[in-house]
């Protein structure tokens, strides 16, 4: 029952000027608001829950879907006439998931419990048989998506999100206190490091690389610092669960969504603390005796960047391309899926942000790079958003690709000014 198909070979003639068309932004930049000089187009549309994406050196796109579309969980998109629009599409993989990463001659994909790698031929056509490299990861239906990235030495890093908001005795119940110590942290709420080329690895084969991370969806390997950077989804419901200490407005704003730079053994403090970006402090979580004033987490590391609360960072990418102006080189793009936890206050996020970096450290404030995904001026509840940014990838020419898991649009952002 081996299912083999090789995707069409792109011939060496790809540079032939006569057939190659110019990639142009769509009218109105596909609805996106961008800095001057940038343009955007829709590469593909209506793919459904398009989570993370990966791009081959020839510009083909692999998309991982959360829910199957026509029975398939991964789609290969190809643009034959080089006008920027995908005109060929093939699906494979019968599982939903989030992770999609490409390095060398392998494509890596994750379900909510496993990681599979697919061999790519020299022309980047894919052998859809797949080889299970990681299995048995915890999925208890909350923060269950697994994101993946590789380092230079072919180690693969996988997040396992905590199946809880703040490790309460009763998840999300008003007044329920935190378990001490939090038992979830032995197999979730952190990052595990595996080998990219070994079959059927489980927790026992892995290095428990980092802990105290509630849920990570966006992560990337920074090739300048040679370290792993992650975006944590901060805890929810401070006012719902501890109304004596937090009002609705504070609960909408706190805690920060944090970027961390990780090393082997990193601890970012969840569930015992959260980060308050107004006080610039690690605060003791109310489940562990906090009251919005007491600090904590002396052993926990500080974030590299703190963003407004609940915006849900689902994609992280360090830009190494040459298309965008110098300012963007080595900086971080973050896809914010958009909040729900700010209700009844207006929601926030639903954009791609940018943080400039110099010598491996942020060199300026974060800013909104691409906005307008939601199609609304204000989103009060997430179902109003037409598109929600999720995955990010860099094309071979330096274009930035953004996936949307509400409608399944793949955007390509290009720099058009000379």
């Amino acid at each position, binding site marked *: 029952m081996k299912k083999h198909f090789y995707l069409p070979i792109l011939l060496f003639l790809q540079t032939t000027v006569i057939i190659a068309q110019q990639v142009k932004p769509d009218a109105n930049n596909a609805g996106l608001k961008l800095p001057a000089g940038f343009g955007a187009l829709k590469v593909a549309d209506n793919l459904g829950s398009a989570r993370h994406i990966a791009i081959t050196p020839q510009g083909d796109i692999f998309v991982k879907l959360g829910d199957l579309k026509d029975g398939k969980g991964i789609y290969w998109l190809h643009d034959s006439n080089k006008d920027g629009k995908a005109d060929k599409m093939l699906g494979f993989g019968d599982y939903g998931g989030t992770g999609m990463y490409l390095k060398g001659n392998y494509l890596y994909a994750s379900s909510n419990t496993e990681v599979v790698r697919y061999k790519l031929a020299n022309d980047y056509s894919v052998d859809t048989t797949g080889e299970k490299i990681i299995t048995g990861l915890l999925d208890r239906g909350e923060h269950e998506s697994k994101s993946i990235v590789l380092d230079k030495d072919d180690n693969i890093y996988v997040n396992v999100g905590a199946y809880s908001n703040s490790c309460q005795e009763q998840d999300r*119940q008003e007044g329920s206190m935190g378990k001490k110590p939090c038992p979830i942290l032995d197999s979730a709420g952190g990052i595990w490091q595996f080998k990219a080329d070994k079959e059927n690895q489980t927790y026992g084969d892995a290095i428990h690389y980092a802990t105290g991370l509630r849920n990570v969806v966006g992560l990337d390997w920074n090739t300048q610092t040679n370290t792993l950077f992650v975006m944590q989804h901060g805890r929810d419901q401070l006012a719902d669960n501890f109304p004596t200490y937090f009002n609705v407005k504070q609960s909408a704003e706190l805690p920060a969504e944090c970027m961390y730079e990780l090393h082997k053994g990193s601890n970012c403090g969840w569930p015992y603390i959260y980060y308050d970006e107004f006080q610039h402090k690690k605060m003791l979580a109310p489940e562990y005796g906090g009251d919005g004033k007491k600090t904590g987490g002396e052993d926990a590391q500080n974030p590299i960047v703190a963003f407004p609360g609940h915006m849900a960072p689902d994609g992280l990418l360090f830009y190494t391309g040459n298309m965008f102006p110098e300012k963007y080189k080595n900086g971080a793009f973050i896809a914010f899926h958009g909040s729900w936890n700010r209700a009844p206050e207006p929601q926030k996020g639903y954009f791609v942000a940018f943080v400039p970096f110099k010598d491996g450290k942020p060199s300026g404030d974060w800013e909104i790079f691409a906005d307008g995904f939601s199609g609304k001026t204000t989103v009060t509840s997430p179902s109003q958003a037409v598109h929600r940014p999720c995955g990010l990838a860099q094309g071979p020419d330096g274009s930035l690709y953004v996936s949307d898991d509400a409608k399944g649009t793949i955007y390509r952002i290009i720099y058009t000014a000379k």
Partner: protein
Amino acid sequence: MKKLSVVIIIITCAVCAASTQPAQTSKQKGSAIYKKYCLTCHQADGSGVPRMNPPLIKTSYITGDKSKLIKWVLQGSVEKVAIDGQNYSNNMPPQKNLTDQQIADVLTYIRSSFGNKSPAITSTDVKTVRASIN
């Protein structure tokens, strides 16, 4: 004559208030309970959060059997039950700490808001279901 008509008006008003007020009050009280205990997850317009928290708009639970709905809200869910064919990635905390009247009020509010048009739920309904699961 004058006196009599005033008395009649007073009586009529008292009667009409008695018949319409309770339903009104239950829905109004339910709205406040919704804001405090349900809104963050299910959102102000009941539309939920895609793939995270289900909508409370014309779902089979909202429009269906009262007891099943009451039981769900009392017990919450960590089991990841598909709602009308869709999975949701969150837990719902049990609401058993709310009184029978509060559960009746919030469900009456939900069943007559967000485009829903299902009959009210009484505290007796809730009491019966609570007794059956304890």
